[in-house]
């Protein structure tokens, strides 16, 4: 497992891709108590090795966390990036805003954040 800063994301993934990790299996995120994590799961199909890349992003009061889009390297990232941006409010830099995938509308809360309250009414933005 590699833990990296978000500035190094594209470079790290590019290096891995040139080493044969061409298959992006999964992207997910974790709302850890003090930071936000985005996890990339890659695989080398020929030699059957998996590699996990974990990006930690500092949380800030004023701004939503953001991470670079990896669509150009791995087209498979498309729906996973849209999913984490809807569920965790993570901004995906370098992608046009598109219609929501899983949710009908995005309120002022993001469901998979720990700060999301059950039963509270969230309103359309």
């Amino acid at each position, binding site marked *: 497992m590699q833990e990296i800063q978000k500035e190094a994301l594209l470079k790290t993934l590019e290096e891995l891709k040139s080493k044969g990790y061409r298959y992006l299996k999964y992207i*997910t995120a*974790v709302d850890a108590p003090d930071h936000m994590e985005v996890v990339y799961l890659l695989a080398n*199909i020929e030699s059957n090795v998996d590699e996990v890349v974990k990006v930690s992003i500092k949380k800030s009061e004023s701004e939503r966390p953001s991470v670079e889009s990896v669509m150009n390297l791995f*087209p498979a990232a498309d*729906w996973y990036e849209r999913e984490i941006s809807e569920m965790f409010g993570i901004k995906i830099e370098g992608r046009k805003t598109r219609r929501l995938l899983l949710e009908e509308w995005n309120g002022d809360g993001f*469901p*998979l954040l720990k700060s*999301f309250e059950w039963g509270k009414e969230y309103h359309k933005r």
Partner: protein
Amino acid sequence: MPNMRINIGPIHPSTHGVLRVVAYVNGDTIDSVEPHIGFLHRGVEKLMETRMYMQNPSYTEKLDYVAPMGWDELYVSSVEKATGATVLENAQYARVILLEFQRIASHLLWLGTFANDLGQMFTIFMWAFRERAKVIKFLEDVSGSRMFYVNMRIGGLNGELPEDFKERAYSLLDYLSERIPKYRSLLDNNNFFVSRTKGVGVLSKEDAIAYGASGPVLRASGVEYDVRKSSPYYIYDKLKFNVPRGTHGDAFDRYRVRYDEMLESIKIIKQTLDLMPGGSVAGAKVKLIGQPAKPDPVIISRELPRGEGIIYLVPDKQKPYRIGMRSPAYINLSLLPKLAKGAKFADLFSIIGSLDVVFAEIDR
């Protein structure tokens, strides 16, 4: 000719669930399609964070209502890995047998409905459902429930196997290996079926890898990748079986890969039954679960009928802190815009069908 926008669904017999597809067509050639999903979104990942570990299998099972046992086993093994529990030896064999029967049941349901969509009306459908009913009856006798089994426990199953488990499994296998080869003549020699699947929805090998296709869709494009072979779990490394592959990556190859997988599953179950050592298979009572030793994330992956399922579990003491689930049908459906571009409108349903999508799993 001006473009026309056609709306399909959300309720349509050929979308196998609640999928809305908006197609932009030029004549009857598709310019682009946009799949709209999320109609069944119920926030399972969030819900599971609020439940204790062994309350959750009831949720994971409903992810894929065609093959619930796969997700059940996947989730329970992620908890096993987090708590450091070991699986009883005989239970490992029993799990492989049940999972492979579940794969056959899932592929049979797919085959019946897919052929039905494409004009092989009802014969295959009735045959496949008849065989599937027998498989499901067998699974019911083992687990106690017909559709949603919830029969995986930490370290084993929810109870002992029936006394005549082996005899019944063998006789069911005999029945299946006599019946399933008969499907070939109805499909491979059927002009309607062949002309609606051959050369339809072609996915090249390079694209299949780049776009993250999974399971039979990936293998139909000629990639030899199966979790049971690449990182074997339980006893798969002791068994002899092939990984069926396609050459053209079209809808017909996806049918052939799934069809061959059923025959491989029969081979796997036969070998497992022969090797089964005997002994207890009952897992721990729910109250006796240890707590995860470390909060390190657990990643576990399994070859489900629809492709590779992955669970990313960040454990906490009593409940999961975060559980991320990679659904193979989700990523396969995301290929639809690519596959349908330039296809004929009537072939859209052949393409959707060949991806074998289940919406409870896609929308989560």
